[in-house]
């Protein structure tokens, strides 16, 4: 008997139809904890993680992004709206195949934001780039459209295709491993700046 057959045999028999039993699981919890003011809530909750939050209009975005740039090159993924980076010298922008280790930062969009928890969800599709792009460079600038803000975890998950590679980002990386004192900026980007349109 293979290990597989052995393990499965030890777990049988199971009674009944899994699909029907699954559908019958009670889910009396809330779909969302806040109904209104989601933009404010998202801004507040993201800022709670000590990520920088900028509330800007679409027209002001290029200047706001340019002001946030630090010296060095920034990687931009394919599919990022060109208008967003119109305020920046093209020589400062590198394509997604650039050497990430030497990039100062990266500019991306996102898939969704969970207002309740201040979480940014990336599915690494167009405008977001492969996972390494938002991981290796030290400065992550992310642009969020208001219609991408979901109230809470259940709402957000309903918008997401989980079979895509996904990264849920809640503030910059952090550790509390030393005497539980929180240190921000370990291995991911040490600075996260969020631009809410």
């Amino acid at each position: 008997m293979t290990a597989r057959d052995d393990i499965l045999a030890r777990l049988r028999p199971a009674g009944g139809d899994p699909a029907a039993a699954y559908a019958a699981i009670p889910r009396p919890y809330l779909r969302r904890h806040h109904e209104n003011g989601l933009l404010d809530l998202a801004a507040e909750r993201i800022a709670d993680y000590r990520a920088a939050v900028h509330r800007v209009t679409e027209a002001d975005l290029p200047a706001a992004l340019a002001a946030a740039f630090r010296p060095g090159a920034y990687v931009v993924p394919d599919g990022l709206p060109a208008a967003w980076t119109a305020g920046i010298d093209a020589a400062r922008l590198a394509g997604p195949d650039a050497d990430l280790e030497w990039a100062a930062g990266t500019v991306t969009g996102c898939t969704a934001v969970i207002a309740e928890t201040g979480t940014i969800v990336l599915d690494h599709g167009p405008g977001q780039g492969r996972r390494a792009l938002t991981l290796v460079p030290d400065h992550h600038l992310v642009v969020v459209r208001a219609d991408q803000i979901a109230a809470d975890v259940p709402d957000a998950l309903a918008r997401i295709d989980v079979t895509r590679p996904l990264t849920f980002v809640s503030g910059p990386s952090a550790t509390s491993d030393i005497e539980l004192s929180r240190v921000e900026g370990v291995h991911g980007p040490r600075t996260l700046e969020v631009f809410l349109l």
Partner: protein
Amino acid sequence: MTMPTYVGMPAFPKAARAAVADTRLRGNLAHATGTIRARRAAAVAELDDWAELRAAGKAIKDHTLAHLAHYLELLEERVTAAGGTVHWARDAAEANAIVTRLVRATGETEVVKVKSMATQETGLNEALAEAGITAHETDLAELIVQLGDDRPSHILVPAIHKNRAEIRALFRARMPSAPDDLTDDPAALAEAARRHLRAKFLSAKVAVSGANFAIADTGTVLVVESEGNGRMCLTLPDTLITVMGIEKLLPTARDLEVFLQLLPRSSTAERMNPYTSAWTGVTPGDGPQAFHLVLLDNGRTATHADPVGRQALRCIRCSACLNVCPVYARAGGHAYGSPYPGPIGAILSPQIRGIGSEVDASLPFASSLCGACYEVCPVAIDIPEVLVHLRARAPKRPAERAAMGAAGWALNSAARLAAAQALAGRGRRFARHARVPRAWTDTRDVPVPPAESFRAWWRRTRDGS
């Protein structure tokens, strides 16, 4: 069963006695568990529907366990369809052999690792070392533990027993890149670790990870973390090998809406942990292009077969039960002699290893049955119920006497503790007789509490010791 008992590990009583005598260790532990407890209570109180989420979490896990063979087959099918390869391991030795073979096939002699309870359970690092493969732990706490040739003492904060001065000394001694003027400021220590590990991440070809959840009907695997070392390991190498206990399944992606609320708040007391990664098989052009999922039994099917003990498999390793446990706070994690310390360890280790060794036979007694662990558990595992059940199965006399002697020692005449226990006892009685709206105990009946308190029981039975 083949979760190795730590070599030379004394039974809980002896180990606990040593820990209780170590005032520095106790100081570290008391500070840490007290801090996490308070933060967690605040994070949980923020959600009005915590009791409902907890009930749903329990129901989803129970359902999954009832149909585990079905969901495992489904997971295998979906992971395979998405370009991954699924392996099955009956025990630790099989799992280690599979991982060793997979690493060898890449030609590499180094792997980076994300913190994984399952591979601690199988002793993977030691098995790889025997095969000439070096495993680098990349979680800061695991790194501290590894550099110190030490053992983890807490699920979530494995180096909870070390303070900043000890960590600084360790880095200075064992980390070549640590600067001469390294201070004991946690930020400076974290920066030293960042530099030490960055080169490893950027050059690593093979990563080994655990998993927090896997979604059966999509084949998606998730890792929940804080530091970004997980993302590094899951993204940059060419080959990813994930070792996962067979109980980590969830039926559909929808179930994440419950567990991504329960786990971060219950574990690190955050609304959401900094990073969660999810991947489904292999994605061309993004991340590892070879993905292996090793499904580990190692005593879980035996645990599954026990109708009372099975609930231990609901555990999502949040570690909340450790932080409320009066015995853990005094005895520390090492006394439990397994990667799973605290109340969950006391019911999980004897079940997955079998009650063969002295330490495993003593673990069901390493508790005062105060019930705090049950009340705090986000998937409502009735740890006291399982402890009592396992006590009945344990070989009685010598182990019991020895264990009670030591648990008694751990708890000996600490006025604060006595007060805490009395409070917990009152809470239990209160919960049984009164309706407490929104209390966690609402989700099900509290089990009949022990008729006498632990202390009374110990006093009554110690005459033989």
